[in-house]
């Protein structure tokens, strides 16, 4: 079956559309915040909405490679970096909600809260890894880092697991939402079983 490749212009248009769609969640969140529609517990609402979108974008990002394999088209891969950076964007919003609204940028409060809240420690760790991936996401960095770029960016699997555990860890009793994300993640990771296995085997050999 012959597949038509998209022209540069077509791809550009498509990328712009996807970009705009990715901005929809944050637009709706800001709109609700401005109009006082965040409900009784606005800080919690913002935590949940930015956190939900972080994990959703992460899972969508991880869907691109399986899509490519299933349909034999390289098109999904062309969106992978953008989606990955949106994951980072929503994670940054999530962190910002915590820093500015939850902690009021008060360092003393943070130093007290963080050691008492294991899920926050995990979230901060995952975010710092995501930051490293975002910083090294440019074509220039990719070229400079060579094969180590691919090794570094395999961290996304670990980050995804940490994100889901972060969600489980802060949940009180009703695990239905994190379970959904966990199941989706397991399916997406199953596609990479060989890669993950090789990664760990290689590490063990090095050690």
């Amino acid at each position, binding site marked *: 079956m012959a597949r038509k490749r998209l022209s540069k212009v077509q791809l550009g248009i498509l990328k712009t559309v996807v970009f705009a769609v990715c901005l929809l969640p944050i637009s709706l969140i800001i709109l609700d*915040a401005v109009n006082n529609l965040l409900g*009784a517990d606005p*800080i919690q609402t913002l935590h949940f909405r930015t956190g939900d979108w972080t994990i959703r974008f992460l899972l969508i990002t991880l869907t691109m490679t399986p899509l490519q394999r299933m349909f034999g088209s390289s098109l999904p891969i062309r969106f992978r970096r953008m989606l990955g950076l949106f994951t980072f964007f929503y994670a940054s919003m999530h962190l910002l909600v915590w820093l500015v609204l939850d902690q009021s940028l008060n360092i003393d409060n943070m130093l007290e809260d963080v050691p008492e809240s294991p899920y926050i420690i995990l979230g901060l760790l995952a975010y710092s890894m995501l930051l490293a991936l975002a910083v090294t996401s440019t074509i220039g960095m990719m070229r400079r880092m060579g094969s180590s770029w691919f090794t570094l960016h395999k961290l996304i699997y670990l980050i995804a697991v940490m994100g889901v555990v972060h969600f489980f860890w802060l949940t009180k*009793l009703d695990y239905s939402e994190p379970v959904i994300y966990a199941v989706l993640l397991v399916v997406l990771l199953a596609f990479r079983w060989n890669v993950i296995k090789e990664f760990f085997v290689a590490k063990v050999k090095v050690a």
Partner: protein
Amino acid sequence: MIIKKPALISENDVTPRADFDNSRALISASRRKFLLQSSTAMLAGGLAPSTLWAGNKIEGVKKSPLSIDVPTTPYEYVTTYNNFYEFGTAKGDPAVNAHLLKTKPWSVTVEGEVGKPGVYDLEDILKRQQLEERIYRLRCVEAWSMVVPWVGFSLANLIKQMEPTSKAKYVEFTTLYDPEQMPGQKSRSLKWPYTEGLRMDEAMNPLTLMATGLYGEEMPNQNGAPLRLIVPWKYGFKSIKSIVKIRLMEHMPKTTWNESVGREYGFYANVNPQVPHPRWSQSRERVIGAPLFTPKRDTEMFNGYGEQVASLYKGMDLKRFF
């Protein structure tokens, strides 16, 4: 009968929500508009109006000196942000589902170490109580708080009328179990029915309230109608809702959250900023209804009721007995 249909002119001076809404600066005009719209939308979605806005005024309520003098949380938030897993685990679930609960008639079984066991009609119980308005801060174990003008009576009075025996050392409370009226009970999120308990001296403390209403009106179902406990120095989950049974016991009763996750939720559950929950800090709380950029509130020892209750726990290791 104490509970009546709304009177045209009210003579009591209990915090009415209309008054409150008009005077409060915290709630902006736009937010009020939204609440109006959202409530209209919810009503259009098939909600019985009486569920969300109970609306029936309670007459003959006295003000209590035990009230704290701070602005109360808007009625709309008090009645739409609820932890009442019998109606679902999301905060908005109870306001949507609680219309399924039938609160009239309602009877309460009194049993155990009492001189006067029996099944009492709630109306008969209320006939013998002086209802008071008490404005208390409610601190949830999830690190948020609200201030609610409850209507109710001292549990101590009720217990005295039950004539406790010398063996009565604890009080156990049980919520209604009826999955048809409480659809959340169809899920096994917790072991039903919900039970809670207090030590006798905690139950007899003047602060401990049996509440039948809020904002001068009959208790909305989602807030635990028709009869619930309020123990203001303990985390909210101790304040059991829709009570059908009170049992006086010699031994410490089993309590639902403690049975479910004992590592995280103790029998005492006193508000204590120094003892974190195993997974989060308890040193500060989000104030429900506060504007977005309001810093969190420092949680007070015993939720600010230390003067009245600290002596109950003298010599106890509160880290161990959390």
